[in-house]
Each structure stands twice: as structure tokens, then as C-alpha cells.
């Protein structure tokens, strides 16, 4: 009697799970293990999120696909950031706002330690881009863009630049005063918002380390607001603070501040204010 032909699919021993089901179970077990290992990898994830902006999702909004993938693939960040910065120059030359900003943000996300990327991006967004957009609209058929529209365009761009400056100050706390100073200038020159500018200048003057010319800018901004008395009182206190610090002053910054105070004092007599002020 011929023996029955063995079925190749027939298993020699029974299995609880077979084929794809086993793969699915293995994946599920990996999923559970991942959850279990979360506390182990948490310190590293937290440290990266706090110290390396390239790992923050917010830094990547709108810039994925610009060579960022290679940049976060374990290295090449500096070179990819440099390429992005170079490409931003090409778009800057073409007055292509969207691309220019995208590449500048790519550079700051990939290599946040390079202060040039931040300051360059702030200046281009705040000073150049509003002008480009206004020019673009004028060339687009509108002979003259309405002043209110121009102001609106400028405000939008400056707000973006101020946000970037705040991010830069957070990233470079040792240069935060530079960023506040830049923000103050943007508010003063582009928005004519002296109140806001004065706040930024004050922040830069009282920052750590303080910028000496920020003190002068703050005083001038207060004078532009018609608050000479406040400016003089603040500068008097500022000089006292700087004298108390007793730090080396090879450029005689204190002397410059004293000169400015004298000018304000003279103005007080011209205005014939009571001596207590």
C-alpha cells in the first residue's frame, strides 16, 4: 500500500502562534518594552530637548526636506547649517522671502551655537523683508502701497524677528543683551515704538553682562518719549551701580555716561525744573 504523500505545509509540531501573528505579537512586545524603558532614556531625551534645538519639533516646522534629515542623521550639522546659510544668501539676492527665511531657520535649528545665524536672520527678517514685500506689491500693479498696509506688513515681519531674537537670547544667555539691543533698535527704527524700544534697551542695559551703550540708548529713548526726568534719575542710579561694581573701564564708559548725565542736568536748568527732580 503506497504511503500517503506528506503535506509540506503540515507542521511537525503544533504552534500556538504562526506566521504574521507571531510578528505582530513580537511587535507588540517591543512596544511594551519601549514603554518600560522610557524612564531609562528620559534623562537623555530631556537633556537633548533642553540643550539641542535641532531635536525640538518647533525648530523643524516648515524646514523638513531642506537637508535637515541628513543634518540630524547623527552628524553633519555644521556643514548642513553652513549650506543652508549659503542658500539663504542666494534667496536673499532674489528677494525670495519664504525661501530665505526657511533656510535661515534651518541654519539656526541645525547649528544654534553660531550667533551669526541668529543675528543675520533677525536683521534680514526685520529690516529687509518688509521692504521687499512692499516693493513686490508696488511692482505688482499697486502704484503706491497704502501707509497703513505698509505699517501692517512691517509690524508682521518685525514681530517674527522679535520672536527669533527671544529664541536667540534663550539659546545664547551670555549674549542675551545683544539680542535685546537688536530688538530695541527694530522697535525704534521700524515700528517707531519708542515705549517698547525703551523696554528692550533697559533689559540690555541691566542684563548680565550689561551693554554700556544700551544705557545711553535707553536714556535717549526715554527722552524721545518726553520722559527726561525719568531718564536723568535712572542714569544717575546707573552710574552709581557701575561705580559700585568697580569693574575695569579702559574705554572710560563711565565718563561717557557722566557726560550724558551732565547734558541732561543742563536741560533741567533750561526747563527750570525744581532741583529735587
Amino acid at each position, binding site marked *: 500500500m503506497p504511503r500517503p504523500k506528506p503535506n509540506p505545509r503540515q507542521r511537525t509540531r503544533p504552534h500556538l502562534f504562526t506566521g504574521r501573528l507571531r510578528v505582530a505579537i513580537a511587535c507588540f512586545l517591543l*512596544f511594551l518594552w519601549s514603554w518600560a524603558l522610557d524612564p531609562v532614556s528620559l534623562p537623555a531625551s530631556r537633556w537633548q530637548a533642553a540643550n539641542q534645538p535641532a531635536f525640538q519639533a518647533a525648530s523643524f516646522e516648515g524646514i523638513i526636506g531642506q537637508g535637515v534629515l541628513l543634518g540630524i542623521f*547623527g*552628524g553633519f550639522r555644521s556643514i548642513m547649517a553652513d549650506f543652508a546659510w549659503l542658500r539663504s544668501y542666494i534667496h536673499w539676492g532674489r528677494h525670495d522671502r519664504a525661501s530665505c527665511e526657511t533656510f535661515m531657520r534651518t541654519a539656526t535649528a541645525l547649528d544654534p551655537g553660531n550667533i551669526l545665524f541668529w543675528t543675520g536672520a533677525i536683521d534680514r527678517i526685520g529690516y529687509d523683508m518688509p521692504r521687499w514685500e512692499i516693493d513686490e506689491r508696488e511692482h505688482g500693479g499697486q502704484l503706491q502701497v497704502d501707509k497703513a498696509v505698509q505699517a501692517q506688513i512691517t509690524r508682521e515681519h518685525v514681530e517674527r524677528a522679535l520672536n527669533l531674537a527671544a529664541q536667540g537670547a534663550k539659546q545664547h544667555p551670555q549674549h542675551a543683551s545683544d539680542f535685546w539691543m537688536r530688538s530695541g533698535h527694530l522697535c525704534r527704527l521700524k515700528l517707531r515704538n519708542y515705549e517698547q524700544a525703551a523696554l528692550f534697551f533697559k533689559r540690555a542695559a541691566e542684563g548680565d553682562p550689561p551693554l554700556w551703550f544700551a544705557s545711553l540708548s535707553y536714556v535717549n529713548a526715554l527722552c524721545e518719549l518726553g520722559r527726561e526726568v525719568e531718564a536723568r534719575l535712572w542714569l544717575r542710579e546707573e552710574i552709581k551701580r557701575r561705580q559700585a561694581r568697580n569693574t575695569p573701564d579702559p574705554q572710560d564708559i563711565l565718563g561717557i555716561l557722566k557726560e550724558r548725565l551732565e547734558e541732561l542736568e543742563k536741560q533741567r536748568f533750561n526747563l527750570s525744573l525744581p532741583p529735587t527732580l
Partner: protein
Amino acid sequence: MNREALQRVASLATNTFTEALRQRFFAFLMLLGVMLALSGILLRTFNFGTSELKFLADFGFGGVFLFGSILAVVMTVQLFFSELESRTALTLLARPVRRWEFFIGKFFGIQILLAVFIAVLIGVLGALLAMRSWELGREALRLGMPEPWFSTHGLLVFAFLQCLRLAIVSALTLFVCSFARTFLYAVVVSAMATLACQLQGIGDAALAQNKQETLLHLFVENCGRVIPDLQVFDLGAPLVLQREGLPATVVLGVIGYGLLYIPVLLLLGIWLFRDREI
């Protein structure tokens, strides 16, 4: 596990390593990696204010992971499938070699190969950094500026972390090989999984930022959990170039993560491979 089993695993690992060394692909990738690290010297002038040592180190780190990942994926699949396709696996498994021994032997053989690759690349990078930091140091002394600095100890810790990272990649690839039917399928799935592992952290952060209470969102959020997060191993710059280094908890956490993930990937791979038809 008895002594004979260990000996069999060791001889399988040695054979795998010797076979891998003979492959031109390994030599080609090694050469590319070394050339990339050295080309950092030529490209160093192309930067906008980044410190030169950081630029060089960054270039080297990129080479280690990029070429290391390609090597870990392609060589693992190649060495695994060559045994199956040439039927030598059948001959091997007909002897008193168990499937898990075959699986673990392959894994360790590839680890030796990856360790050699990392050692060579990190050696070249270390030499390059030492040479430039010495030259820049002399110049800095002359100009009265602070000397550039890098940590050799940090570089060694980084090399170890990269060994762990690539071990995860090769364990993941072996896991895929344990159920894959073709070479191409295994390479493509493993490469995609490696890329996803690298981007997992960013994906998680992006999902957390746009949180929605939908079933789809929940599903996508949890999908990433199936694969390990390789981004936590990206600690090169702070380890090598920051004087203050990294908190010990961060480094130990990453080492622990790698050491705890690899065995589970291997165990699940062995479980799937145990009943696979060869």
C-alpha cells in the same frame, strides 16, 4: 547555556567576522568613512564662525553613523541571507548547532566588524582633532587667545555609545531577517526602520505639540513605540567638545537603554527564527 554552546557561538561569530572582512563592501565603506573624516580638513574653511574642531568632529560623527548604519543593515542582511541562500545554514543546523546559537553567532560576528569600523574611524577622527588642536593651540598661544580643547575620554565614551547604537541597528535588522523572505525586503525594511528610529524623538515631539484626542492620533503616537529611539545616542558634541561634559545620569541612561533594548530584540528575533522554514 553550556561551554560547548558558547564555543559554537564563538566560532560562528569568528566565521561571520572573517567572511565579512573578505567582502569588498566593507572595505569600500571603511574607505569612504575615512575619506569623509579626512575631507573635513579640506572643507573646514567653509564655515560661518563655527569652531574648527567642532566642524571636524561633526563631520566625523556624521560619517560614523551614516556609514555605520549602512554597514550594519546591509552586512547583517547579506551575511544572514547568504547562509540561507547557499544552503550552508541547513548543513550547519543539521549539526548540533541550535538556531539561537546561529542567530547569536551572526550577531556577535557583526558586532566585531562594527567595532573595528568604529575604532578605525574614531582613531582617524581623534588623530585629526589632536593634530588640529595642537596647531591651533600654538597659534592661540601666540595671539594670547584661549586654547582650543577636545576630550579624548569623551571621544572614547562616544565610540562606545556608537557601538551600542549600531548594535541596536544590527539587532533590529536581524529581527527583520528572522521573518523576511527576501534579501531586498529585509534591507528596505531595516533601512526604513533605522531612519524612523533616528527620527522618532522629533516625531514624538511634533505629535505632542499638535495633540489631538482622536483615535488616529493615538495610533500614530504609539506606532513609534515599536522601534527604539536612536536619537538619544546623539551626544557627540557635548561629550567631546564641552569642557563641562554631560551629567553622568544622561550617559548612564543611554548606556542602560542600549544594553536593555538589544537582548529583547535578539530574544524576539530568536523566537521568530525558531520555527522559520529555511
